[in-house]
């Protein structure tokens, strides 16, 4: 066991954990933020996707020791008022069914549009193919990413 400081959603949390504990379980069980989900434990489904220094990362396969003192963003910290363009687009296109994989899908999509403001279908395939949705919401995910891209472009041009 060791002590770690995790900076999650701009707040510091000090936890005692086995250094090999995956970041996912530290966030969920020790910090108590349960929006980030467990799906496979081996970085194959993307349900646990968070941002580490702005990049999409599978938190199930990253030891907590490797994430200490870095900037972690979870679904709870994506926006304060559901106003992130991806969240808005997810509502507009009514993406979720069971919803379990959607935290990861939204975090992956948010990282994509921050990197590529107007992603093509190929960009979307490349960024999202690591995530599984068992309910089959993929057609709406694709549409919502395009909607989010146009929402964020509009937002940027209004500023």
């Amino acid at each position, binding site marked *: *066991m060791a002590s770690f400081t995790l900076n999650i959603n701009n707040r510091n949390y000090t936890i005692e954990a086995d250094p090999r504990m995956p970041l996912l379980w530290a966030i969920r069980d020790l910090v108590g933020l349960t929006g980030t989900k467990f799906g496979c434990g081996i970085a194959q489904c993307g349900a646990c996707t968070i941002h580490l220094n702005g990049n999409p990362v599978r938190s199930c396969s990253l030891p907590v020791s490797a994430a200490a003192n870095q900037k972690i963003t979870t*679904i709870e910290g994506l926006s304060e008022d559901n106003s992130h363009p991806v969240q808005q687009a997810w509502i507009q296109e009514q993406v979720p069914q*069971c919803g379990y994989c959607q935290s990861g899908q939204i975090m992956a999509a948010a990282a994509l549009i921050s990197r590529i403001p107007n992603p093509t279908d190929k960009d979307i395939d490349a960024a999202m193919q690591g995530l*599984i949705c068992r309910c*089959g*919401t993929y057609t709406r995910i694709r549409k919502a990413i395009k909607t989010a891209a146009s929402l964020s472009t509009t937002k940027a041009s209004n500023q």
Partner: protein
Amino acid sequence: MNNTLTLSRRSFLKVTSLAGGGLMLGFHATAAGDLLTDAAELFEPNAYVKISAEGVITILAPNPELGQGVRTTLPMIVAEELDVDWNTIAIEQTPLNTKLYERQVAGGSGAVRSSWDSFRKGGAAARQMLLEAAAKKWNVNVSECRTDKGFVLHPGSGKKASYGELASTAATLEIPKEIKLKDPADYKIIGTRQRSVDNKGIITGKAKYGFDIKREGMLYAMLARPTFGKKLKSFDDKAARAVIGVKNVVQHGSSIAVLATSTWAAKKGRDALKIEWEDEAPLESTSDYTHAFAKMIQQRSDAPKRNDGDVDQAFAGAAKILETTFEAPFLPHAPMEPMCYFADVRDDAADLFGPSQTPARTRSDVARAIGLAEDKITVGMSHQGGGFGRRLQADYSVEAAMVSKLAKAPVLVLWTREDDMQGGFYRPAGLYKYRAAISANKELIGWHMNAAATNTGNAARENSFPAGAVPNFRVDSHNHQSKITVGAWRAPNHNFIAYTEESFIDEIAHELGKDPVAFRLELLERARKNPTGSVGYDVDKYIGVVKLAAEMGNWGKQGVNGIYKGFGAHYSFGTYVAQVADVSVIGNKIKVHKIYAAVDCGRVINPLGAEKQLEGGIIDGLGHALYGELTFDKGVVNQKNFNSYKMIRIQDTPDIEVRFIQSDAHPQGLGEPGLPPTGAAVANAIFAATGKRLKKQPFDLRVDIG
């Protein structure tokens, strides 16, 4: 249309005064008469409608929600009859209450089709009482009053009162003997596109699933379980107990649970157990059951599931006989949230919470296992990360309850993906042989299906089309008993049989030199005009979706820009679905560009939710046809996680276009019927593109079986 329903003696309607002077109304249409004694109870916390004196209108959602949208759809029905503004009401998930609700089940695509009347009556009865309360208060005739979006109006005097203002008076009134339902022509909510009430919670990460449950003093538990055919011989938990955070180890049957203060510690502890297993039955591998199926389908069963005319005579006199065999693998449900359940079992009571498609079965199975009466057990429902039939089982909830009882602690039992893949209750593996007899004048005169599957009383769907359209028609079914457990998997039997039937029909059509859609329509006309035996489907509705899908999918044009079309149709859970698939094949690579679906499910409550169920069903049908396969080596699954068990992903997903036939008929199922036709439509398109018939799922063009 008669919109008046008379309450039968067995019906049960109850009104409860809320604290602070409100109205709560519950309705139970099928309960036994003894429930009437409950009517005098106050403060019963379950019903369909709750109106507080402050004017808060809450519609209660009793059914388990796992993505199929019932937490939105069912309250829409109540809100319609209650006549309230959909955007101002609150929706609340209820716990299990078998006294108030008739069917708290997510299965059989049955929520709307079985509870349509109850939910309408729940809303309508409350509205009627609010009208009467207003009439009484204003001393006017009730027939002079009307409702509008949460208010009662008396146009004659211009008086107006909100439901909240009338709630306490309404609560003192007699329950109406006759409930008048709305004329569907006046619907303002039913039939409109409404967003899911759960989405805000989902997109913010606030929605609480089974894995997210946290209770005071709760421990996380993971279990080591035997694989199929094994049982526990002995175990050593010394290393497990030494893991920091591990608090307890308990044995439940052949399984061993490690309880800890975090998921990670529970997993580390579980993985540190030293266990010796022993065989209790022969250990089955995939080649064992596939050989068993192959032997079985050479025989006829003693009792055919259906036997019209004389197939022997038909085949003896046939000018041509076609024969085809289709092979189905086991499939895990693989919901994104693996199995999990919370239980707090004490000496005199127990609280259960978590994802379940059938909380009533959960309660009765747990009651039996832990030796407590059902009325001492509460069952709450969390959000659920999918189910697809897996959560119709109570194995995982009974296990959680037993671990809690043995450890004397509240526990959340969590399964890893590997636990879930090995956990059983799969879609059965099977083998399905079809033979068709063609007469000299090119008529289909005989059809014989011979099916074998694992642990399945009936591997067939004997009344499915083209039954009724073929004069000599026989279906045999065989059961291969196995230690590998099976269960309902989205559209049970239909999920594979539709692919086999509709592929074979396509093959027969090509043999006869007929267009596959025209051939289906010809058979359907035969089922109408000259049926053989019973016809288990509505011919007009069937024809309606076949024609609409053909029109949507520009049927008839093959090979334009390298795109080939395939057709598939199926009737299940009250709903007719026909699909056209646009597919191209380059080398061995199958690319599905678009699926067109025509649907007749009776009245559509929420077109937006309905579309999503069809989209999901189609992607599910496509994904498993392309990739789904679970195989065994001596009782152990070979595909242990998503690195080896392949699932459909975004880059393989086609465009989807769905249209619903306009209908005023009783609403039917939607969670499952979208899935069955897809595999056939895609396989038939692949045949059109390549001349190869795919006889096995998952599809593999490298295997030359053409």
